[in-house]
């Protein structure tokens, strides 16, 4: 029984492998760079799809969560604790093996937080902030919700832009690679390009597996019910406030995960990752993917980010996303891919039926 359920995930895994082989065969392994980056952005997008498309809660601040993740990990892995050696908190961290020492560019001693620990802290920080922000914000609806999330996103942007601790407008540079396990390292070194592609897409696969399970489950049904008629869902016993909040936090955590990994992959992060335009782009991709269509959003996310990161839109990058938003919302508010797929692949969208 589990086999049919997992078919889309298996197909995605095969597609991931096929793309790598194809790029290698076509002599264009460099494409994997942008595909890797697009993969990390996809984590934001699939989370946002569940929040917006399934649960019906708009967020114009998800770039903020991405940035919080990336910046936290970036700051922790570059902030030099060496001058503080001997102080008790630093000693404790050292004793726990959470710190790692090295040399900086100028050859000076460097003592920073281990990437693993930084990653965990980044996720926890994001989850905490998402919880604190989400709790009051998700009580709002419509324009008020849009405005509040936009406000949150703007605050994150202004804070990273105004804080010299995180490099203000320059952002953080020289962020070290992130050794995962078994020799896997998240780094932008071209020699490890294919490996990093698989790390990114492994994460995406994992996220997709979890999320497709989620949308087919009791929780997924409750989320769609909240989207359709919040009061009725509440009357059927769905704790709508809690479900919305959990979904918000989950999507924020996914965004932060993408942020952490991309930051280590890129070796740096700048305020542009937190900008409101970035958040709007994520919304545009979810919309063009079909709002409540996880696969559509994933596909459009990879496609558009891939093209954008390759500079295919030139100076019209933002304009392209603006026009996409307009066109989709005017002519196909349910998304480009949705109508098509709904007809052909009822099993994908209505998980209920696909499960025997």
């Amino acid at each position, binding site marked *: *029984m589990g086999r049919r*359920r997992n078919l889309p995930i298996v197909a995605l895994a095969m597609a991931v492998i096929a793309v790598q082989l194809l790029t290698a065969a076509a002599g264009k392994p460099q494409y994997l760079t942008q595909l890797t980056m697009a993969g990390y952005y996809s984590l934001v997008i699939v989370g946002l799809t569940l929040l917006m498309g399934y649960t019906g809660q708009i967020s114009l601040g998800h770039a903020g969560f991405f940035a919080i993740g990336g910046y936290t990990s970036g700051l922790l892995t570059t902030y030099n604790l060496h001058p503080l050696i001997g102080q008790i908190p630093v000693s404790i961290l050292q004793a726990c093996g959470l710190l790692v020492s090295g040399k900086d560019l100028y050859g000076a001693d460097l003592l920073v937080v281990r990437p693993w620990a930084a990653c965990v802290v980044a996720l926890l920080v994001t989850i905490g902030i998402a919880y604190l922000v989400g709790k009051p914000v998700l009580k709002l609806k419509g324009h008020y919700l849009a405005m509040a999330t936009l406000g949150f996103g703007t605050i994150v942007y202004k804070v990273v832009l105004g804080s010299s601790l995180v490099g203000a407008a320059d952002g953080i540079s020289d962020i070290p690679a992130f050794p995962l396990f078994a020799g896997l390292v998240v780094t932008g070194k071209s020699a490890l390009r294919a490996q990093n592609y698989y790390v990114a897409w492994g994460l995406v696969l994992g996220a997709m*597996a*979890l*999320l497709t*399970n*989620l949308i*087919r*489950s*009791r*929780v*997924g*049904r*409750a989320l*769609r*019910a909240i*989207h*359709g*008629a919040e*009061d*009725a*869902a*509440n*009357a*059927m*016993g*769905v*704790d*709508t*406030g809690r479900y919305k909040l*959990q979904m918000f936090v*989950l999507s924020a955590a996914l965004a932060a995960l993408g942020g952490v990994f991309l930051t280590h992959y890129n070796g740096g992060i700048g305020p542009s990752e937190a900008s409101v335009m970035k958040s709007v782009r994520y919304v545009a991709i979810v919309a063009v993917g079909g709002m*409540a269509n996880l696969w559509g959003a994933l596909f459009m996310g990879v496609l558009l980010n891939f093209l954008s990161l390759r500079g295919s839109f030139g100076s019209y990058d933002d304009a392209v996303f603006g026009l996409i938003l307009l066109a989709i919302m005017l002519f196909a508010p349910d998304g480009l891919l949705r109508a098509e797929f709904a007809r052909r692949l009822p099993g994908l969208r*209505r998980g*209920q*039926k696909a*499960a025997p």
Partner: protein
Amino acid sequence: MSLLVVKDLCKRFGGLQAVDNVSFAVASGSIKALIGPNGAGKTTLFNLIFGALLPDSGQVWFDGKQTDGWKPHQVAAAGMARTFQHIRLFPKMSALDNIAVGRHVHSRAGFLASMLGLPWTRREQRAVREKALEIMRFLGVEELADGEATSLAYGQQRIVELGRALACEPKLLLLDEPAAGLNMRETSEMAKLIARIRDTGVTVLLVEHDMTLVMNISDEVLVLSYGEKIADDKPLAIQKHPEVIKVYLGEDDA
């Protein structure tokens, strides 16, 4: 033994006293009807009982627990279910999925277990589906299972909404104008259905304008006018109640 007891409930909207010091009880296993002219405060009373609105004062006791101040989902978990005056089905979901949402309080898979797709959550999913189908069979609409709920015929939507409430396996079922918009044949079928539901042991509290339905199936009738209770008695006694005739039946000629 009363399943629901309402004591001195009050609710004011700005200058309007929507519910004014209303007290009553619903006996376990009975059908109680709530009638009154438009704007009498019937739906407000429902919302107060269900937790969708907070009362200004007064108490609601359900199944031995004081539930005023609870959120609707807490009330639902305690064993109360409702339908809405204007049908509130979930769009873009099949009829079966709509009814399956009603099983929410009787299932427990959360975010983590669902995401991991643990085997027990799948078993639970199958059980939910079976139960939803069983309810559709009970209502005689199992052929509608895969249709998109909001594109069904109006009468069918009413049935599906009723099924969704039944899926909660409630002790008390609140029906807000279950026959509104139905034709005469559908109305009498609805009446039979409500009686059948009561016979399975579910207590029913309903708001309804159709007096034939009310008088045929109710064990007791409560009459509201301008937020105040003016009568609470057996149907036959209500029909003869002078106050009721004056404020309600008199002008409605029902």
